[in-house]
């Protein structure tokens, strides 16, 4: 069980001589991912998804709030002590090429963490070899043909599988997949998604899926939760299908409206929402962050920040003063 409460992260950019520029990447994010569960973070570029994912994987520090792994609050530990906890959470990078060392064979890549593990648990060398083959088989690769190769000799999909296999060598409890399929060829994407789902089911590994392609978030399991993030804040949260089918936050609705319609297979949603453009509009910190772009903004939005809440008749949590369901997503033709 991994939970975060009010996580805040501010980047200080080392600008010029006169003062640094601050970027508020996360402004108090709450989340909870159960053991073996699934969660997806979606949002526009720059909204803080990656930052959050890296914080969860222990690769980035946070300024405020608390991250709790299996009931242990991380801020109570010294950096050294946190490491074993974070090892249970493995990050799968977006770019499978840069995630593998081009100068090392797959064999060498897998061996390093396995050797460490063997040392810790007192296992033999033979175990390392066995285990390497095992994790490769787990991700659907043939150990015999893959082990001796260099990353550049593999396709994108295979590389991504190797990255996942490497994460599996340390028996993680959770995988954080940051845009894990966006650089994979379209025809192979589903394969990786299916693999993640399969790992969840077989090994009970929780998956945190970060994407801006909302549709893919459905494929890691229908029990998953969707977190919609806007400018470092969660604006809507609920079961994947519920949020997609009945989004209530105007931002979620804008996002979903922006998804291209497969004319011929689908027909567009009836109430698409087009946000006012340009994110630059005012960094005003008091009101709703989305208000400047929101076509439905009301009086309260300007001065008050809505918090994530549950309201009558709406199954998901949301952060909007005027929640309203709108049918924005395209429907398959066949449903007609």
């Amino acid at each position: 069980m991994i939970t975060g409460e009010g996580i805040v992260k501010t980047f200080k950019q080392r600008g010029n001589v006169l003062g640094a520029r601050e970027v508020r990447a996360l402004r108090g994010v709450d989340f909870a991912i159960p053991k073996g569960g699934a969660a997806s973070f979606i949002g526009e570029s720059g909204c803080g998804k990656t930052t959050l994912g890296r914080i969860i994987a222990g690769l980035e520090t946070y300024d405020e709030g608390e991250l709790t792994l299996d009931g242990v609050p991380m801020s109570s530990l010294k950096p050294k002590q946190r490491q074993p906890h974070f090892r249970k959470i493995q990050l799968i990078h977006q770019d499978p090429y840069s995630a593998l060392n081009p100068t090392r064979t797959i064999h060498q890549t897998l061996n390093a963490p396995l050797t460490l593990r063997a040392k810790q648990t007192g296992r033999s060398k033979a175990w390392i070899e066995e285990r390497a083959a095992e994790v490769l088989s787990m991700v659907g690769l043939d150990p015999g043909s893959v082990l001796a190769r260099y990353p550049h000799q593999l396709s994108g999909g295979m590389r991504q599988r190797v990255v996942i296999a490497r994460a599996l060598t340390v028996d993680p409890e959770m995988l954080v997949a940051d845009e894990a399929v966006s650089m994979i060829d379209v025809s192979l994407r589903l394969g990786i998604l299916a693999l993640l789902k399969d790992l969840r089911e077989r090994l009970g590994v929780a998956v945190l899926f970060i994407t801006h392609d909302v549709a893919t978030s459905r494929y890691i399991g229908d029990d998953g939760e969707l977190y919609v993030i806007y400018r470092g804040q969660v604006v809507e949260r609920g079961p994947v299908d519920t949020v997609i089918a009945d989004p209530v936050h105007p931002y979620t609705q804008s996002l979903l409206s922006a998804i291209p319609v497969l004319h011929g297979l689908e027909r567009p949603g009836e109430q698409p929402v087009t946000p006012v453009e340009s994110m630059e509009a005012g960094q005003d910190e008091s009101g709703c962050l989305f208000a400047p772009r929101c076509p439905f903004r009301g009086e309260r939005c300007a001065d008050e920040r809505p918090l994530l809440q549950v309201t009558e008749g709406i199954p998901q949590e949301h952060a909007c003063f005027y929640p309203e369901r709108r049918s924005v997503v395209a429907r398959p033709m066949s449903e007609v």
Partner: protein
Amino acid sequence: MPGQAPGVRIDGLTVVYKTPAGELPAVRDVALTLEPGTITGIVGESGSGKSTLALSLLNAVQPPGRIAAGSVDIDGLGDVVGLRGEELRKARGKHVGYVFQAAQNSLNPLKTVGKQVLDLGRSHGVEDLRGLVRDARELLGRMGLDGARVLDSHQHELSGGMRQRVGIMLALVLNAHLVVLDEPTTALDMITQANILKIVREVHAERGLTTLVITHDIGVVAEVADRLAVMYGGRLVEQGPTRQVLGDPRHPYTKGLIRAIPRLTGDIAEARALPGRPPTLTTVPERGCVFRDRCELRMDVCDTDDPAAVAHGDRIVACHAVKVREHA
């Protein structure tokens, strides 16, 4: 002004790249017609030869590549493959506009956008440079930007979406009526993408253009294109009106591809990945169907013969299996 939109006929186009293993075709024997005034979309996975095809439209394949065979006939220009030197240069920009991928930098980092517009004007002998700048400003305004400010900006001062719009402006400002957009929305976020696509559609209609959109994202073509062509391993395997191709794909690759699209709604179990992996320049088989390794309908003839592109009404499909079924 009707009739300004040119038609384009690509025929038998083969483009090869020189590699240590010899000259290998990245685009092979492609035939494609762009009807005047339509938006045609080309989809294909990475390395399928889309960009190469797009560059061929301007006879701009970069070395070590070259157009080995075929013709690209553009109304009002003739066969571009035959054009050389100044003629070719003049055709570019004035007749054919080319829009680069968004996140990449298609602007000179050292010059303001306005100065680059002027360079463009001078290159094409525009006499009324003021008028050109005015046009540019209007175009930018049309796309929802503050034209004056953008013209005064350097590339690094613009966001990805803004750059992309500047790119479209530069492609159109000389009044080109054939526009090629290579991956116009890749690396942009969804909302910006939707905006750009909207702009593409509107500008296309307003200015009476013939447009070619190249992308790996079927969603993008489905959203904007009238006609859709699917590329695989350097070949066009299927083409036809967008709705027809999406609704009723014929080629097994198209089918597989469409099935592999993650869907927002509906049964997730319907979607499945295509087994195998896309070919690269070196793994494309020399003879026979390029898709056969991943094909469910593979037949013996696929190993030996290239399937010809055969018209089926509005649709053109290059598959032995489809032919067989049709004839049967």
